[in-house]
């Protein structure tokens, strides 16, 4: 097992290297640069800026410099937010995004699973149809509709919650963003769980358990649910990586100081180092969560062996 984890972590190195290299050059293919949008920048000032950030060096030189910095854990300065290094931005923003994402993920897994199980046990009856309808709505209504609706109803009309803002991480400020993030995920998890449970309940060994008179709880939870967890786990891995690294829409609508906005803003502004930093962070999250998924698989299913 430890050998397997080691092997996986070792193979992550070339993967990361490939991602960094590819993004680095792709980014430079895009026209423009970090300082080309600012109006009235005299050529001398621009040249000065580029010299300071070593943007005047040949591309291969810049690439090697960036790699060397990265190996030392240095993500470089942000070009558009000159008071901060990329690492600073993440140090402040990532905990915020992770908090929101983790809460949304847990909510989605718990609520989605419960709904899915209820639907599977009441297959083709009222409860099932309600869950399926909810799931369809949840995954089709976009976040940028749900979030303003939430603000309109609960903040502006009812005045139960603040419209936006982080509020230093106060619980009442988190409700809206977490719900908005979680809703589509609840829908997806509920649908996955419903299908997986229906499938699991059809298995021959469930018939065995029933024939042995083991009764509802043992059949549903001990035997069916454990098998039905596998597809949920494989979905949860990539979903976790996506949720924990922040959402552009939610963080923009609710004015949350997370890292979700950086990727888009930085890409538009050609803030090379910030884009690269975001890519690396997301890649690491994806790699780590995929590994966690595979390890959880082995934990749930004894037939899966890594050695």
């Amino acid at each position, binding site marked *: 097992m430890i050998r397997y984890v080691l092997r996986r972590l070792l193979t992550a190195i070339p993967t990361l290297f490939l991602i960094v290299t590819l993004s680095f050059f792709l980014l430079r293919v895009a026209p423009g640069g970090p300082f080309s949008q600012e109006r009235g920048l005299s050529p001398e000032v621009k040249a000065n800026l580029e010299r300071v950030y070593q943007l005047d060096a040949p591309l291969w030189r810049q690439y090697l410099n960036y790699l060397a910095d990265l190996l030392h854990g240095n993500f470089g300065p942000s070009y558009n937010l000159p008071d901060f290094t990329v690492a600073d931005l993440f140090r402040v923003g990532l905990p915020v995004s992770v908090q929101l994402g983790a809460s949304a993920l847990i909510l989605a897994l718990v609520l989605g699973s419960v709904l899915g199980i209820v639907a599977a046990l009441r297959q083709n009856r009222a409860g099932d149809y309600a869950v399926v309808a909810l799931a369809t709505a949840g995954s089709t209504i976009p976040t940028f509709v749900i979030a303003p609706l939430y603000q309109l109803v609960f903040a502006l009309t009812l005045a139960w919650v603040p419209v936006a803002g982080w509020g230093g991480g106060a619980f009442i400020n988190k409700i809206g963003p977490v719900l908005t993030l979680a809703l589509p995920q609840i829908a997806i998890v509920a649908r996955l769980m419903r299908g997986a449970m229906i499938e699991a309940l059809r298995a021959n060994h469930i018939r065995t358990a029933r024939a042995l008179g*083991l009764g509802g709880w043992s059949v549903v939870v001990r035997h069916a649910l454990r*098998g039905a967890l596998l597809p949920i786990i494989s979905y949860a891995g990539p979903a976790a990586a996506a949720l924990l690294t922040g959402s552009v829409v939610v963080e923009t609508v609710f004015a949350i100081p997370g890292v979700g906005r950086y990727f888009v803003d930085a890409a538009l502004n050609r803030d090379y180092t910030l884009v690269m930093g975001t890519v690396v962070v997301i890649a690491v999250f994806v790699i780590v969560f995929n590994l966690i998924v595979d390890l959880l698989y082995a934990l749930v299913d004894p037939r899966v062996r890594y050695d």
Partner: protein
Amino acid sequence: MADEMPSDLDIDAAAGDAPLLELTGLDVRFDTPDGEIHAVRGIDLALNPGETLAVVGESGSGKSQTMMAAMGLLARNGRVAGSVRYRGREILGLPSRALDEIRGARIAMIFQEPMTSLDPLYTIGSQLAEPLARHKRLGARAARERAVELLALVGIPDPERRLRAYPHELSGGQRQRVMIAMALAAEPDVLIADEPTTALDVTVQAQIIELLRSLQRRFRMGIVFITHDLGLARHFADRVAVMRYGQVVEEGPASQVLSRPAHDYTRMLLASEPSGTKAPPPEDAPVVLEAQGLDVTFHIGGGWLAGPPLEIHAVDRVSLTLKRGQTIGIVGESGSGKSTLGRALIRLIDGKGDIRLFGRPVGELDAAGLRALRRQVQIVFQDPYGSLSPRMTVGEIVSEGLRVHEPELDARSRERQVIAALEDVTLDPALRNRYPHEFSGGQRQRIAIARALILKPRVLVLDEPTSALDRSVQKGIVELLRRLQREHGLSYLFISHDLSVVRALSDWIMVMRRGQLVEAGPTEDVYEAPAAAYTRELIAAAYGLSDREQAGRR
């Protein structure tokens, strides 16, 4: 101490002389999108203490659904009417909580599929402990001790260690033993066994039947034995009920029903046991396929940091010579390498060794030459459900080979050949625009044979072509294969674990075990006087259980 458990049910007192299990007017219907299916049509059956009742019938006769209904295990769309009494007490329609006091405790059931009937995610010990905790109220330690006893009882070696094993770490026979142990955990007095040995090799089948017999004597259980195998029913049962279309057509003592059947259907079932023999081809018949020292090794796993791969020697230096008009039967149990041998011979799997097809060494051929030769050698697979593409019509499936081997053919002449091929296997050519799911298993197997025949091959590799079929359907396929061989001068490699079909079809037989050839010779010689101990064991297992009189009749 584990055995002392006060019964919290008062059924034992009420027992009297009533049958253990009594079904009266049992009726089962299923609501399906295509309308209602009336699966069981008001049948009456009774099981007495210590008795074995065999319920025999072909697939779709309703024999399994009868028992599933009695146990309250019908699928969601099933509806049941009538009466099921356990020791005089009505159990049909009991709420599931009350039913669970009887299921597993008083009436236990084992199933056909030992591979999937155990939960793959829990250890054997943990699954055995469940019914013990549920019905005997045993604590974890007591349940563990009892589980060890139960595993020993069903003949699992080293039971202490086996408790920690997962189902996938056991063989099929061992899983079925574990299944039996689970069923016996609460010491039931009725055991319903639904085709418990069908998926197992013959030698294992014989062991499981022996085990059930001895357990029955020991616990005085009544056993309902559901099977399609008449030989097994005759060997094992006291009474036999023959089912067809959801009704019992004949019932009585096993010896009477199976030797002096009163009903035509029973007679037809008995007559569909494979019979007849095959004469060897003439001495001077040309050799069509020849293999010398064929060897196949599989490598499993391995790779970077994972150590060397596991090597499995699937076929170990096997040689054979197939003449024109000859049928070689290749028999062996699962894992013996018989299918691998068949596939390696036609180069579907790469192996080492010398293969000559019509005198030409296959090893030297390039891709085009191999394709030309492939046309002469076709294969028919076991699974008539999985081996036909569900998204193609029968006509497309049958003509596909022509598109590869005779691309210049126009649509009309292709159509003509499809019709001829379907007629050859006695299928109505008007059905060629339908899809495989609209056909029965036997019809699908005919489609698969037509697909092979349309290329006018000279050699057919038949990989368990009849194993998934009912005996009466099987008989039709066997007769079809005989006729096709006569008419087209075909040579067959007939791969099967079913010794009686092999005996009926082949004139030469090869017995395989663990990749090696155990024995080979003319079929009748091998069956009458097997030289190898393993062959003797195999034949004893198959025919000891199966029809003794039939063996005498020959």
